[in-house]
């Protein structure tokens, strides 16, 4: 045991079990070792004794003195007076048995006691292992021996043998790793197409319709196939019959593929046309020319739209403009020029104008020439107010057209009379082309110019007839048969006209066919006019009487009074016995057939040759006339019996030749010698009628609206009766005034009354 105060300082770490040996070495106090060379870390460390300063200095004797120490089993720190409560005796008692044991050091180890159970087990296990090893070894050796002896034996099973785990080597080899590579190839993409389709109700409907049509076609083709062998059937039919099933098979029952297939077929059919269209504009024209009539109609309507847009202000005037100054200027009126219709080809005279009885915006204009020496080809143009820029239809004739008339109940039939004496009937609907009927020299045409044609109503035979009057003195009734025009001479004016030389107005039939046969001074001008058709048109109810009289072929009365050729006579549209005559002697006269002997009831001096005159359809007292100086005169005998309400110049440097009132609108057409037809709107003062509907130009009367209801017809009759009375009243007053004048003149013994009764 080392002295208590000696502390040991060591260089390395040592285990605790070597402390005892170290202590013995210290006690021996070997001489200090030489200091190890620097860097020799494995040398024995240097020992150095260090004494604290306050250590007792003992002598040798003291050091050698023996100090006996005793070890007792008594634990000095164990409590001696430990008291515990004794539950049995119910008091505290000292505990006699105090544990004196103190463990200063304890350590668990690997050592086993030989006699213990655990050691016995361990010994058994070691023995069993040794035996097994020995047995295995012996087997290995035996196997080796037998192998050496050439026997084929299996090696001993060493699976249960523990291997030497420290003498075990693991070997591995790695083959070469190829790096990953990506490679791809693509086929040519399959052809794709985008198809779209829609399926709406109307497409389904169309498809059903097409299907029904196809089935009809199939059924129509079937009896033929049954009657004859299929090979003898026409190839077209065979193809048509074969195609639909094929299309059906291709369709596969889908409704959407059907139209697609048909569209493809149609596209293939039309491919040629489309390719042609792509080549150029001329080819486009060719493709357009091949288009159906629907395209032409669409183009015509587009034309109308464009013109209406361009002339929108005129259309507004036509509909809504009224001259406001009329309200404080009674007894005067004005005319507003609206559209102008030009002659489609060249400059010809407007020789006749006729409104269509069915369409209030449509009218026919005949173009020709009034000059005897400058005759040109003729033209009939059908215009519409809806398109002033271009005629709806144009018919060309060899000779100048002098008269046109629409059939009142078949408004597509247009009768014309030409300067060479021929008459013809055109279908107004058919574009261009030849007339339906034409009277030529062979079929008995007139020998001189036809001045008027008028359709007749033949209620007995239900045939279509029209009358024509010509300068050759004949009034001929033409009947439309299946193949030609059959002429029938109604009367001959020639002899009469010759007799009536010196200016006579002849009117046949009091209430119906009126004819005028003026000598006109010159021998060339004989009969000019027949008013038969016109009269008949207006005196609807008197048809029977008219027919009788018309066929009687005799003049009932003739009226003389004009000093020069009479250009026009017109029966009043509302009064059965009053008519109007326009003459080259500058006068416009109103006659009463009941007072033939009395001469003209009224006479207006218009200052120039009067080309044409017409009664207004809306009032019995209003009439209009055109003169050669380009003026339009509107008279209202109820308002003013001496001068016209309005004398307005509407064209410059042209003679006005014809005029026509529209049956429904307050407009007037006037034609001039330059081929222009001007549309004029009447101001409110010019369209006053006697009835309650004053100023209503659109007043429908029985003639304009024959198909109107019973109430309307009754109203129309009342209106007509009132108008007749009004005109009668005016004429009565006029006659009184005239009689007074005549009486005064007679009293002055100044004979030379201008009128003589025939």
């Amino acid at each position, binding site marked *: 045991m080392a002295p208590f105060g000696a502390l040991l300082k060591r260089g390395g770490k040592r285990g605790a079990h070597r402390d005892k040996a170290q202590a013995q070495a210290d006690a021996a106090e070997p001489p200090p070792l030489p200091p190890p060379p620097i860097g020799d870390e494995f040398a024995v460390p240097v020992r150095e004794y260090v004494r604290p300063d306050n250590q007792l200095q003992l002598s040798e004797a003291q050091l050698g003195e023996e100090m006996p120490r005793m070890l007792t089993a008594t634990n000095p720190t164990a409590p001696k007076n430990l008291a515990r409560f004794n539950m049995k005796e119910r008091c505290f008692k000292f505990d006699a048995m105090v544990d004196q044991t103190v463990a200063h050091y304890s350590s668990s180890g690997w050592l086993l006691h030989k006699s213990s159970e655990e050691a016995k087990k361990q010994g058994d296990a070691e023995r069993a292992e040794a035996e097994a090893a020995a047995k295995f070894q012996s087997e290995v050796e035996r196997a080796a021996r037998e192998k050496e002896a050439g026997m084929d034996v299996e090696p001993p099973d060493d699976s249960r043998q523990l291997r030497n785990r420290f003498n075990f080597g693991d070997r591995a080899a790695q083959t070469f790793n190829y790096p990953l590579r990506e490679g791809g190839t693509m086929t040519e993409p399959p052809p794709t197409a985008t198809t779209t389709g829609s399926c709406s109700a*109307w497409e389904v409907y169309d498809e059903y319709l097409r299907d029904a049509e196809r089935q009809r076609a199939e059924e129509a083709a079937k009896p033929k196939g049954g009657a004859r062998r299929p090979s003898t059937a026409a190839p077209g039919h065979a193809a048509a019959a074969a195609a639909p099933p094929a299309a059906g098979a291709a369709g596969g029952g889908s409704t959407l593929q059907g139209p697609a297939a048909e569209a493809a077929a149609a596209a293939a059919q039309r491919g040629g046309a489309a390719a042609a269209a792509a080549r150029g504009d001329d080819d*486009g*024209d060719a493709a*357009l020319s091949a288009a159906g009539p629907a*395209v032409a109609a669409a183009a*015509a309507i587009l034309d109308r*739209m464009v013109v209406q847009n*361009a002339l929108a202000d005129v259309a507004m005037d036509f509909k809504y403009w009224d001259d406001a100054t009329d309200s404080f200027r009674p007894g005067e009126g004005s005319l507003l020029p609206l559209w102008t219709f030009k002659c489609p080809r060249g400059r010809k005279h407007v020789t006749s104008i006729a409104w269509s009885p069915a369409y209030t915006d449509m009218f026919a204009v005949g173009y020709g020439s009034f000059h005897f020496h400058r005759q040109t080809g003729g033209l009939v143009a059908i215009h519409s107010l809806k398109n002033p820029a271009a005629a709806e239809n144009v018919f060309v004739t060899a000779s100048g057209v002098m008269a046109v008339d629409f059939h009142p109940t078949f408004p597509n039939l247009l009768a014309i009379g030409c300067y060479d004496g021929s008459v013809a009937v055109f279908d107004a609907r058919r574009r261009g082309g030849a007339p339906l009927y034409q009277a030529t020299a062979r079929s008995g045409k007139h020998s001189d110019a036809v001045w008027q044609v008028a359709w007749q109503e033949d209620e007995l035979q239900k045939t279509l007839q029209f009358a024509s009057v010509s300068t050759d003195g004949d009034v001929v009734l033409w009947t439309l048969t299946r193949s030609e025009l059959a002429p029938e001479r109604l009367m001959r004016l020639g002899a009469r006209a010759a007799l009536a030389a010196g200016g006579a107005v002849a009117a046949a039939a009091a209430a119906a066919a009126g004819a005028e046969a003026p000598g006109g001074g010159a021998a060339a001008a004989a009969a000019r006019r027949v008013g038969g058709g016109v009269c008949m048109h207006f005196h609807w109810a008197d048809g029977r009487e008219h027919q009788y009289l018309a066929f009687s072929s005799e003049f009932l009365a003739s009226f003389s009074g004009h000093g020069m050729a009479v250009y026009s006579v017109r029966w009043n549209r509302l009064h059965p016995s009053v008519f109007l005559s326009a003459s080259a002697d500058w006068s416009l006269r109103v006659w009463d057939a009941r007072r033939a002997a009395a001469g003209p009831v009224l006479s207006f001096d218009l200052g120039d040759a009067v080309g044409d005159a017409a009664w207004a359809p809306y009032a019995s007292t209003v009439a209009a006339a055109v003169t050669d100086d380009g003026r339009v005169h509107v008279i209202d005998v109820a308002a003013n019996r001496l001068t016209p309400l309005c004398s307005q110049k509407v064209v410059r440097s042209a003679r006005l030749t014809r005029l026509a009132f529209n049956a429904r609108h307050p407009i007037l057409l006037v034609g001039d010698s330059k081929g222009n037809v001007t549309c004029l709107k009447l101001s409110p003062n010019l369209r006053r009628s006697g009835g309650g509907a004053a100023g209503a130009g659109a007043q429908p009367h029985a003639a304009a609206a024959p198909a109107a209801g019973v109430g309307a017809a009754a109203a129309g009759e009342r209106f007509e009766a009132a108008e007749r009375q009004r005109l009668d009243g005016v004429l009565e007053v006029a006659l009184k005034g005239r009689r007074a004048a005549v009486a005064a003149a007679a009293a002055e013994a100044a004979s030379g009354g201008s009128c003589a009764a025939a």
Partner: protein
Amino acid sequence: MASSVTETLERVQKHKGVIGVLVVGEEGQVVKSTLDEAQTADYAGLIPGLTSLARSMVRELDPLNDLEFLRIRSVKHEIMVAPRDEFVLIVIQDPSAAQ
């Protein structure tokens, strides 16, 4: 009859305020045009689509019905469209220029 379509269209072209006349075929190919190429392409590309849409609307309301005309009034122009058979006729007009 046959040439009357081209005649009528030529007449339309001469009217006041008409900017262009265009005839487009069923597959959108231009059959006839008086406009320059760019405008022709614009109109021919856009209008038939509108027309077919309008026609579809009309027929959807009543399958027995059909579209007759299409009139488009814009601030500057009026476009009149007439779809017929295999053609679409288009007229572009400036109404203010006509007055």
